[in-house]
């Protein structure tokens, strides 16, 4: 007992050597996977189809029962806990949304509170709060039916429904996969803003590396044969891919993608203090991404940026320095 690994107190989700072997299949869908996901962390599982990422996700709320290994949620071993009460404490969002078509939007959102025995008036109030939270006016939408909503609106309701009982953990299986690219980007942005407010522990599956890089605090890249190839921050995955598989999967253009992940403050140390008097520079906040800074420079045809630094004063970076600094992983990851 004592030699088995236990989750650290910071871990919200802890997978201890979980495996899934489907009967009649030669290879395990997931084998001996261990992962620790911290409280309030947004982790994205990404990889080619058949790599076991969805199976992994579905083992967390035991829609797929692991063949071996243990699952901990919030420090408790839930490998053999009652599934229905386990799932009521975990938000779940799927690509096909799956709203109950015969219930109103409010009743859909209040589904889990209803199963938990929350009183009707409280349930309704909660549903309205959540609709508000995901940007749908309850006065307009609470009484409507799923069929009357667009795909993007339905997915918002799906997120609201998952949040209804205020679960600490949310599992999302390609939640933005079924909507068109413009709506998807909007939903992603809104969801990131939402996450900064609600700070849930989120595990999300996607096959889209761009989505993963954009949303995840950390990304788990799954390789063929359900191998966890790398589990790290987006910047680290772009800068120091663990192996050729990760490098290939991330694809070309990693240095350019890094621009949206790096902050100006990350590269400010390569700047010079002296500013050429003649140069046309524009002020940029240190918290902006390098990508945004470049945009501003290009848009105003400036030659560089001026960044205010802690303790007063400002630093100067010309376009060339900015690009070189951003292209050098070692410099940033010190």
């Amino acid at each position, binding site marked *: 007992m004592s030699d088995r690994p236990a989750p650290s107190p910071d871990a919200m989700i802890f997978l201890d050597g979980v495996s899934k072997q489907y009967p009649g299949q030669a290879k395990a869908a997931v084998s001996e996977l261990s992962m620790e996901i911290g409280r309030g962390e947004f982790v994205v599982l990404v990889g080619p189809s058949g790599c076991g990422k969805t199976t992994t996700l579905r083992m967390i*709320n035991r*829609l797929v029962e692991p063949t071996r290994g243990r699952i901990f949620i919030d420090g408790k071993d839930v490998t053999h806990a009652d*599934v*229905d*009460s*386990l*799932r*009521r*404490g975990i938000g*779940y969002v*799927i690509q*096909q*949304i*799956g*709203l*109950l*078509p*015969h*219930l*109103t939007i409010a009743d859909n959102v209040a*589904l*889990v509170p209803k*199963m938990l025995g929350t009183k009707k008036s409280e349930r309704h109030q909660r549903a309205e709060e959540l609709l508000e939270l995901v940007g749908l006016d309850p006065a307009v939408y609470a009484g*409507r*039916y*799923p*069929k*009357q909503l667009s795909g993007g609106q339905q997915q918002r309701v*799906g997120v609201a*429904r*998952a949040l209804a009982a205020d679960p600490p953990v949310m*599992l999302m299986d390609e939640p933005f996969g079924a909507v068109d690219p413009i709506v998807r980007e909007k939903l992603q942005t809104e969801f990131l803003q939402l996450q900064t407010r609600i700070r849930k522990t989120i595990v999300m599956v996607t096959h889209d590396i761009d989505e993963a890089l954009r949303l995840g605090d950390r990304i788990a890249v799954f390789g063929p044969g359900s191998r966890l190839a790398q589990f790290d921050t987006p910047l680290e995955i772009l800068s120091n891919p663990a192996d050729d598989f990760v490098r290939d999967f991330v694809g070309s253009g990693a240095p350019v993608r890094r621009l949206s992940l790096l902050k100006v403050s990350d590269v400010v140390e390569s700047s010079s203090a002296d500013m050429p008097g003649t140069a046309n520079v524009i002020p940029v906040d240190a918290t902006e991404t390098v990508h945004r800074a470049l945009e501003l420079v290009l848009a105003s045809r400036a030659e560089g940026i001026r960044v205010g630094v802690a303790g007063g004063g400002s630093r100067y970076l010309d376009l060339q320095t900015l690009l070189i600094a951003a292209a050098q992983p070692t410099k940033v990851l010190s």
Partner: protein
Amino acid sequence: MKLVAYMTDNADLLLFLTEQHIELVLVSVGISAVIGIGLALLTQSAPRLRHALLSLTGTLLTIPSFALFALMIPLLGLGVAPTIVALAVYGIFPILRNTVTGIEGVDPAVIEAARGLGMGAGRRMRTVVLPLAWPVILNGIRTATIMLVATAAIGAVVHGPGLGQEIFRGLERIGGANALEEALSGVIGVVLVALILDLLFIGIAKITALRGLNVR
């Protein structure tokens, strides 16, 4: 018109037989529904058994009704009991078939979402699957009902109740006084019963329709 005269003269009898006919059909179809829906639910996790039952109940339907009624005599004698049993047997297939189709037609994503949110199997069946499958199930019951209205008339061969008595009495002494009128008024009654029950089902379908599925 001799027919009209016959029917007005015997209005009480015809009305009584019509009522009997409706009751007979509704009781039989009620039993079919309990068995048909019940079998569909019980075989939820046994698809092969379900298939076998569909084949079996489908095959029962091919037994000529005249023969099935007659086959009931050694088991149940004459009268109401064999009539109801035979009719209930006929009614199972359309209801079982439609219940299975209805359940299988529920969007798997809806079931997956309900399951993922912690809705147990029983509650899922009661509050999600059955309500969504209901229109299809109801249609199966309706088909069974209309089918049984016609078949019930044959029940008269085992002295079953209903309008069949009138038809068979007429046919037995065809050429005799009022024989044709008897048979015809029985047939007209059967057609009217079918119409009335069909309207009843349209009404039930309207009343039980799920608003969410029909909004625009």
